[in-house]
C-alpha cells in the first residue's frame, strides 16, 4: 500500500533518516517505537509529505508521491493524520472542524458531511460537543475529535504521531480505546507511540528505530519476548 524506497531525510547537516526501505501492506497495524531523536516522527511525516524527503521515493497505491508533479492534496485525502498536539482549529466549532475538509475538497456536500460528523461523534461518545469550540474540551476529548476529523474523509490509512504523549495519564485510555476499535475494523494504521501495551496488543508489526535506521522489526509478541539487537534490549529494559 505504501512503498518506501531508500528514503533519506536531513535537516541541514543533521541526517535524520538514513536510507530506509519499508513496505506497509493493507490492513497492517505498524507500530513504530524508539528513543526520541531516532527519526520515527520524521519517518511518519514523510509518508504524507509533511516533510519533504531529501532522497528516495515513496509510492502510495501506485502513485509516486515524492514526484514533484504529483498532486499531494489528492493523495492526502486518502491518508488521515493525528498529531501529538491535536491541532484542532480553535476558530471553528467541532462540527466545522470535522466537515471543513470533506466539503471544501468536494468529497461530500455540507448535509452529508454533517451526517457523517454526527455519526462519527456518536461513535466516540462526543455527540453533544458538536457545537462546542476546541477550547472547551479536555485533552482526551480533543484527541478523539482529531481522530474523528481525520476519519471523516474515509481515509485508507491512518497515521498517528504520538497521539497520547500530550495527554494526562487518565485520558490516555479513552484515546487508545478509539484507536483499538479502529484497528479491529481493519483500518491500515501506522502509529508512532511510547505505549508498549498498545503496541503489543494492537500492532501486527513493531518497528524499532534508532539513529535514522530501522534496527529491528518483528511480530509484537516475538519482538517483546526476545529482542535480538543489543540496542533494542537496552531500550526495552528502560521503558518496560
Amino acid at each position, binding site marked *: 500500500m505504501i512503498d518506501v524506497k531508500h528514503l533519506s531525510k536531513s535537516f541541514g547537516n543533521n541526517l535524520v533518516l538514513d536510507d530506509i526501505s519499508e513496505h506497509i501492506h493493507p490492513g497492517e497495524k505498524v507500530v513504530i517505537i524508539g528513543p526520541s531523536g531516532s527519526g520515527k516522527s520524521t519517518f511518519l511525516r514523510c509518508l504524507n509529505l509533511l516533510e519533504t524527503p531529501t532522497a528516495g521515493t515513496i509510492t502510495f497505491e501506485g502513485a509516486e508521491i515524492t514526484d*514533484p508533479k504529483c498532486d499531494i492534496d489528492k493523495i492526502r485525502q486518502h491518508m488521515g493524520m493525528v498529531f501529538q498536539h491535536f491541532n484542532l482549529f*480553535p*476558530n471553528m466549532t467541532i462540527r466545522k472542524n470535522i466537515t471543513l*475538509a470533506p466539503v*471544501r475538497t468536494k468529497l461530500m456536500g455540507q448535509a452529508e458531511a454533517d451526517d457523517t460528523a454526527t455519526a462519527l461523534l456518536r461513535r466516540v461518545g462526543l455527540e453533544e460537543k458538536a457545537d462546542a469550540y476546541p*477550547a472547551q474540551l479536555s485533552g482526551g476529548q480533543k484527541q478523539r475529535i482529531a481522530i474523528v476529523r481525520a476519519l471523516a474523509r474515509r481515509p485508507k490509512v491512518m497515521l498517528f504521531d504520538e497521539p497520547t504523549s500530550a495527554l494526562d495519564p487518565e485520558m490516555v485510555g479513552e484515546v487508545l480505546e478509539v484507536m483499538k476499535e479502529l484497528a479491529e475494523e481493519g483500518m491500515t494504521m501506522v502509529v508512532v507511540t511510547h505505549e508498549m501495551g498498545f503496541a503489543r496488543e494492537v500492532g501486527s508489526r513493531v518497528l524499532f528505530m534508532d539513529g535514522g535506521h530501522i534496527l529491528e522489526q518483528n511480530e509484537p509478541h516475538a519482538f517483546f519476548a526476545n529482542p535480538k539487537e543489543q540496542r533494542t534490549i537496552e531500550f526495552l529494559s528502560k521503558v518496560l
Partner: protein
Amino acid sequence: MNPTALYEAFMALEDPGFWQESYMQFYRAWFYEDRWMTYFKGLGTTLYVTVIALCIGVVLGVVVATICTAHDQQRPGRRNPVLGLINAVCRVYVTVIRGTPMMVQLMIMGFAIFASSREKTLVGALTLGINSGAYVAEIIRGGLMSLDIGQMEAGRSLGLSYLDTMRFIVVPQAFKAILPSLGNEFIVLLKDTSLISVVAGKEIIYFARAIVTDTYEPMAPYLITAAMYLVLVLIFSWLQGKLERRLRQSDRR
C-alpha cells in the same frame, strides 16, 4: 449666555484675569468670524486622507505579506524564481519605507516627484498609504508566522490546498491575533495625517496654523487640534474594542 456677548464683556475689562484671557483667546480661535468651520473642513480632510491611506496601506500590506509568506513557505527544492524576484522587490520596499522618516518621504513625494501637482492632499494620502503598507505588511507577516505551524500542517494533512488552509484556518486566527497591533497602526496613521501639512495638505493643523498666523495666539488653536485628534482616536479605539470582543467568541470556555 451668548458667547459673543461674553467675549465683548471681557474685552471691555481693563485688567482681565487668567480665565477671562483664556476665554478670549479661545473665542478668537473658535467663534471669531466662524473660524470653527475651518477646523471641521480640516477634519473632513483628515478623515478623507486617513480612509484613502488606510485602503492603500491595507491592500499593499496584504499583498506584500502574502508574497513574503508564500515565498518563505515554499517547499525546499520547489522554489519559484518569479516569486523570488517579486519577494526581493517587496523586501526592498519594506526596508526603504521603514528605514526613512515619514516627513522625508512626504517631502520627496510632495516637492520632488509630484512637485507640479496641485492635489497636494491626494499626494499626502498616497504617501501615507505607501508608508503604512510597509508596517501593515510586517504586522500581517508577524501574525501569520506566530501561528503554530501545526495548524497549517493539520489543514494540509486533511487534503486542503495551501490557499484553502490559509483562508479558513490561518488567516482568521492570525487576524484575531494582529488586531491590537493593526489598530495601533491605524491610530498612528490617523495622527500622521497631520504631517501632510508640510506639503500644504489642507488638514486640521493647516487651518489651525492659518489662525495662529492671524491672531499670534498659538495656545487655543493647537489645543483644539489636539482635542479633535483625541476624540477621533477615542471613537476608533471604542470601535476596535467592540470588534475584538466579537472575535473572541471562540475563546470562551
